[in-house]
């Protein structure tokens, strides 16, 4: 019999029961909550007169609607304010731990989970947010759920689930200098497509993944959902364990030793079989830039905007044409010729300390180009912000002409006041370049933090490897 994949191990250890259809009741160890996808779930609990099954597994934070400036003045938009206040009230009423807006531990839910040690290897972790896949970087089975499932986890500590198929993406060898985790995951999406991982859980492995920091691994797992897979996974190694040690929610003392022993088994067995295996050569990956309105519409910085007339599939060809109209780009235009209006460095994909450092290293001693109306850096949490400030990164950014903001989701999805105006073009370290994602009529190009910083300085896309 073949060995077990990491996914098999995580799945099997959480099955409460299985029915005749193969549908399982899966136990959930950690539930993260934010203000956008939870109000209707709490309302559902109230209407059915139900209480949370286990309070201690829940951790809540407001991140989507929070302002990134003048936070002491509260939230100006009354609709956003009501949603954040509703979370505060629900957490107070049910007794759920919440980091409120002015708590220095507040931040993007997918940044604070790992940062607090609330995300641990071997856990099942869910949140009403598709980028919950991020937490798989620590060897946890983590995936996004809808609001009905948020209510279901609150009420029962379980979810009704069907097991996915398994895919292994092995990135062999080493990436070149200036090529980051973001470029790796964009290259993967470019290769398998945004529906390539639909129905799968993807495990990432290979030397290039092992070489990544935990922050880099989170960037890769974060965008697994953009490849269609609900969950991404990376095996536990020394880096994982070193990262977790001493964090506030992590076990300590004897329990720590016991946990580490258990976590050491969290990798796929050598003889495990996957439903699909994809091999990628790390050395072949260049810095990536998206040109369209889907993350799979991506190319190398040295590439050109593709020509839809060369595409044989009529549905794809139509999508490419629509994307080029929306993005106001022409076939065969060089990516380096694309002029920008705004730059956004932040989001659950790229707002951790390592991302701040990578962007600051490019910005240091340079100036944002005159055509850039706004270049903003939004750290992922209050603690990332404090760390960056302790390292002097905020002063590097502000001296170069970037704005240094307070933590939150910000212009990744523009639910707060940070947004693109119609027609504006942005280099963004976020995860989605959908039409209107960063503001109606806004045009998004996804890149790494170093590439975004370099684009801010140059005013157009440039190959950061030359810097």
């Amino acid at each position, binding site marked *: 019999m073949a060995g077990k994949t990491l996914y098999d191990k995580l799945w099997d250890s959480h099955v*409460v029961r299985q029915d005749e259809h193969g549908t399982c009741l899966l136990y959930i160890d950690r539930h993260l909550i934010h203000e956008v996808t939870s109000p209707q779930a709490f309302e559902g609990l109230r209407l059915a007169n139900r209480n949370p099954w286990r309070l201690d597994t829940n951790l809540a934070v407001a991140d989507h609607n929070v302002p990134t400036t003048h936070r002491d003045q509260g939230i100006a938009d009354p609709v956003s304010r009501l949603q954040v206040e509703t979370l505060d009230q629900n957490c107070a009423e049910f007794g759920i731990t919440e980091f409120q807006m002015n708590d220095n531990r507040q931040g993007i839910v997918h940044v604070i989970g790992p940062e607090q040690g609330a995300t*641990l290897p071997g856990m099942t972790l869910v949140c009403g947010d598709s980028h919950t896949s991020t937490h798989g970087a620590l060897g946890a089975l983590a995936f996004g759920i*809808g609001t009905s499932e948020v209510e279901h986890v609150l009420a029962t500590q379980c979810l009704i689930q069907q097991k996915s198929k398994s895919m292994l993406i092995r990135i062999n060898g080493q990436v070149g200098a200036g090529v980051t985790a973001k470029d790796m995951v964009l290259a993967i999406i470019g290769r398998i497509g945004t*529906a390539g991982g*639909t129905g799968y859980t993807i495990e990432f492995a290979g030397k290039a993944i092992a070489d990544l920091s935990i922050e880099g691994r989170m960037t890769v797992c974060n965008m697994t959902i953009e490849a*269609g897979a609900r969950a991404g996974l990376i095996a536990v190694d020394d880096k994982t364990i070193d990262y977790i040690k001493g964090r506030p929610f992590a076990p300590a003392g004897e329990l720590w030793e016991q946990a580490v022993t258990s976590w050491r088994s969290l990798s796929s067995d050598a003889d495990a079989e996957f439903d699909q295996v994809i091999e990628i050569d790390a050395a072949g990956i260049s810095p990536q830039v998206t040109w369209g309105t889907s993350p799979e519409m991506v190319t190398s910085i040295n590439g050109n905007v593709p020509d839809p007339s060369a595409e044989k599939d009529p549905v794809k060809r139509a999508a490419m044409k629509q994307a080029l109209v929306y993005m106001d780009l022409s076939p065969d235009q060089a990516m380096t010729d694309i002029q920008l209006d705004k730059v956004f460095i932040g989001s659950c994909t790229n707002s951790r300390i390592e991302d701040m450092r990578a962007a600051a290293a490019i910005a240091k001693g340079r100036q944002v180009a005159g055509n850039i109306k706004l270049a903003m850096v939004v750290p992922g949490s209050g603690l990332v912000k404090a760390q960056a400030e302790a390292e002097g990164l905020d002063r590097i950014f502000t001296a170069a002409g970037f704005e240094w903001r307070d933590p939150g989701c910000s212009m990744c999805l523009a*639910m707060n006041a940070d947004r693109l105006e119609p027609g504006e073009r942005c280099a963004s370290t976020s995860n989605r370049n959908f039409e209107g994602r960063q503001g109606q009529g806004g045009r998004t190009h996804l890149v790494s933090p170093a590439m975004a910083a370099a684009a801010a300085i140059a005013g157009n896309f440039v190959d950061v490897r030359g810097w």
Partner: protein
Amino acid sequence: MEKFIKLAGIVLPLDRANVDTDAIIPKQFLKSIKRSGFGPNLFDQWRYLDQGEPGMDNSKRQINPDFILNQARFQGASILLARDNFGCGSSREHAPWALLDYGFNVIIAPGFADIFYNNCFKNGILPIKLPEKVVQKLFEQSVEPGYQLEVDLPQQLITLPDGETLSFEIDGFRKHCLVNGLDDIGLTLEHVKQIKEYENKRKKQAPWLFEK
């Protein structure tokens, strides 16, 4: 949840691949703390020419006459015909809420994003996966004015206007829940004893998960 057994309705073909949940219901409408009222803002960016904000009187907004949802012959449509990877992107259940609130009870596509697909079942919407070629044929046929399909969930059959039938696959548990209009939480709470047994076993194996 309402039971889903049979439905006959007008088909609205939305000829775009990778329709994401930001397109289905833009973020500004996610600020609502209610489950209802999202229908008028379904596909807001494509449906209206002006920029939509929560609280606007949608009846006074500028309609985009080119968008298919605004064309007279598709009024009252309850079956949405879509291309591959429908519902990709965010986990927002506001997307199925908006589709249902507008009046769509069935979505037919070659493929759906996993989270969206799952969210549909929680709200009594039936998402049907059919092979790309079959969907293409339905797109071609749907140009006929008044084009309707009949969907029978217990039989797992779609009947075309000419009487031809197409069968579709659906997971047994999900079908059972839709046909009977069952509430997931109520079903799970029938297994309280097993959940507690699991917790007791797990506490011994992984006590650190029960400490904080």
